[in-house]
């Protein structure tokens, strides 16, 4: 048993309970309005502070990790993305990194079969990470419908795509069947479960994992679970929810009647997540763009990078060197700046 994931689990569980109980004892204003506002303020201020704090430190040296053939002669093809030599190349490198997790994709493994080498992708982490991030993005975009009236066409399109297999089983007694099943929610849940289990079950990864690695995963698990519960099981009153959320964004907060506890749990966990975000490793979202091994051009001999704090340093000059070795240099037939006599004269 590991204290770290147990602790993270405990924290998420307490948060879960707190929101559930709170909304049950009439603290809807606190959980529906005050905390979300506070969380957003913390998020915006914290995020900005962190990024500005990073940006405040200069980049003294151009240290890209070169992942392919650098710019050379025109008869040697350059790896323009993995070792970019211009702004476009760098932009592409960053885009591929952000959109496809290109570095993670490099993980290949190989098998030797009868002296023949076969490569396979070490693909699970990459697929898991991609699934997680894209599902999260989709869910996030879908949720903008709660903050915009009328819902923009592109969001509706996204919803249609996301629910491309619409499950409508009509039980007797359930009038409208199940609402459209959004794939993204379930993918998110599965990906979170995979990433969490991976952390717990792979010894090397467990060895390095901290509370702050388990906590966001479990928190997001709680968010996805409460969201799914709300949508497919407890059937929250969407219109009342939208009234609340629109109230929040238009700064006329209201707490309509009849929204179940699950919604407050969901909203509270989301609030915790966004407030926690700027103070955690989740900032890798912003950090990737500021990573000097990825966002700089590789042809560093062609362009001079300027270090703002470059200061003069003591060096051992040629003159000092010759002073020490003059005699020996002359004896060995090495050229010198000053002959012995000249140097002796100067000393006098």
């Amino acid at each position: 048993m590991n204290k770290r994931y147990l602790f993270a689990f405990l924290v998420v569980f307490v948060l879960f309970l707190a929101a559930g109980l709170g909304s049950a004892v009439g603290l809807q204003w606190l959980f529906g309005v005050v905390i979300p506002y506070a969380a957003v303020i913390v998020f915006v201020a914290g995020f900005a502070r962190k990024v500005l704090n990073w940006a405040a430190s200069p980049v003294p040296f151009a240290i890209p990790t070169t992942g392919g053939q650098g710019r050379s002669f025109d008869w040697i093809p350059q790896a323009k993305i993995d070792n970019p030599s211009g702004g476009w190349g760098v932009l592409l490198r960053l885009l591929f990194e952000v959109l496809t997790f290109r570095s993670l994709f490099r993980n290949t493994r190989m098998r030797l079969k009868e002296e023949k080498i076969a490569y396979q992708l070490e693909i699970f982490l990459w697929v898991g990470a991609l699934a997680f991030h894209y599902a999260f993005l989709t869910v996030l975009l879908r949720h903008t419908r709660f903050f915009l009236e009328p819902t923009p066409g592109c969001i509706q399109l996204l919803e249609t795509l996301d629910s491309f297999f619409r499950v409508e089983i009509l039980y007797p007694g359930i009038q409208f069947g199940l609402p459209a099943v959004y794939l993204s929610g379930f993918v998110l849940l599965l990906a979170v479960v995979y990433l969490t289990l991976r952390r717990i079950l792979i010894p090397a990864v467990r060895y390095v994992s901290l509370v702050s690695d388990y906590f966001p995963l479990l928190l997001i698990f709680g968010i996805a679970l409460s969201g799914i519960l709300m949508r497919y099981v407890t059937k929250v009153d969407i219109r009342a929810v939208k009234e609340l959320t629109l109230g929040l964004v238009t700064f006329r907060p209201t707490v309509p009647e009849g929204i179940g506890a699950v919604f407050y749990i969901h909203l509270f966990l989301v609030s915790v997540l966004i407030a926690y975000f700027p103070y955690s490793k989740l900032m890798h979202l912003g950090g990737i763009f500021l990573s000097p091994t990825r966002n700089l051009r590789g042809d560093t001999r062609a362009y001079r990078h300027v270090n703002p704090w470059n200061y003069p340093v003591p060096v051992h000059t040629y003159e000092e060197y010759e002073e020490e070795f003059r005699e020996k240099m002359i004896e060995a037939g090495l050229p010198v700046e000053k002959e012995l006599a000249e140097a002796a004269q100067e000393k006098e």
Partner: protein
Amino acid sequence: MAEAKPTPQDVLHRIQHSPPRSDWMETPVEIRKGMYCYAANPKSVATLGLPHPHAWNPVEDDWHLPENWQQIIHEGFKERLERFRSFKVFMDICVRCGACADKCHYFIGTGDPKNMPVLRAELLRSVYRNDFSRMGRILGKLNGARPMNFDVLREWWYYLFQCSECRRCSLFCPYGIDTAEITIMGRELLNLLGLNIDWIATPVANCYMNGNHLGIQPHAFKDMIDFFVDDIEEKTGVRVKPRFMEKGADILFITPSGDVFADPGTYTAMGYLMLFHYLEEKYGLKVTWSTYASEGGNFGFFTSHETMKRLNAKMYAEAKRLKVKWILGGECGHMWRVIHQYMDTMNGPADFLEVPVNPITGTRFEQARSTKMVHLVEFTADLLHHGKLEIDKRRNDYLNVTFHDSCNPSRGMGFFEEPRYVIRNVCNHFYEMPANTIREQTFCCGSGAGLNAGENMELRLAGGLPRANAVQHVHRKYGVNMLACICAIDRAALPALMDYWVPGVQVTGVHELVANALNLPGQNERTTNLRGEEFEELMAQAEGHTDEG
């Protein structure tokens, strides 16, 4: 303690066949013989005026630290966070996904979980969380934060000198977190307390005072080159005439001193001399050596940014004094990372030099437009591409060559095709190692970043295993008997690695291969290679080997 006599309890404990399972922060470090390098000689530390030179021994309980050492570390940490965005960002954004874990050759070879790159970085991050993050301090060890204390310091020292700054992990990191950068910062902090290793500190002092890591004085340097001249004459019948510190020469040539003073780099140095002689005879190109700037390598890079700059300054200074057009650099690994990514920034702009143009081919080295320093291998590749060298490849026919990409030219430059082009043009038999062990995914020799000492031989051999393992594969499959490289540390370290893991494979620099194949004007029969081995015998041996295989 590693050096102490084991007690009977220890003996019983050691017989247990499996080490205990425990949380990494609760597993105190055991500084083991064979894995660590000796402490820096205080005289060397003092030569450069670096902080707190003192005598100490890593396996003793008292490292004779300054009274306020924790404060020094804290302030040094803070200063570096403010100066280096890389450091700050890398402290914050790791998600511990584990992609880097099994990419480190020291982890693969030693099996020590604290050699996983992520953990090496966590050594510093744990202190960062405690010192610079409120949340970290509140949650403490539960969230991987711990205050700096002597045990932590020992752990830093032990593991930061088990990283060769090869950057293989950085390639696989989805955020580009570079353990080399973290190791560099950590070593800078250790240097604030005078805790360098001697294999780095003494070469640095030597280089500063005498121009090269080995501390060779100018006349001895010249003697050694003169010896090469005799040796070349003996083997080729041609007397080459190297130039030294000649004002107004076209090009200043700088190479790691290891090439001049240690086998088998010496044969590579002879290769340089023959190439320059050929170019002067045929095309009138004048290349000069310097004893003042007689070190291409830069162990300052393994000490601190400032020390790196102090040693590197000699290159431009000497080029300026000699009024050459541009600088040519020999085959070296970390030297080229320093030149490619740091030199211009630190000691430039080199506006007193010209944009390098090869006067023989007319090629303008656009890739070196600003730094004005060209890699000898790209220079030779350009000459070969334009058919300017008369080559007889048959003299390398007894060789089955493979190429080891050195870490720094690979992941700090992207220098892959140039050496391969040269090798293919001077050798008939070239074989690649498996794809996940070469080019940008290349494995370190196990001795980089100043770790090529003798006392840490176990670490070097274990860390070099992934590399040797790939060499063994091509040795068995294609009969590879020569491992070519473009790095002086490789040439110094790989022979021991080969002796131990893959006997029968020798090590060479690329320009030794070039020189063996190069037809010098007025040469003799050329019955031996530069090592003085008879071609006839070598060919017969090679054929014998092929028959067996």
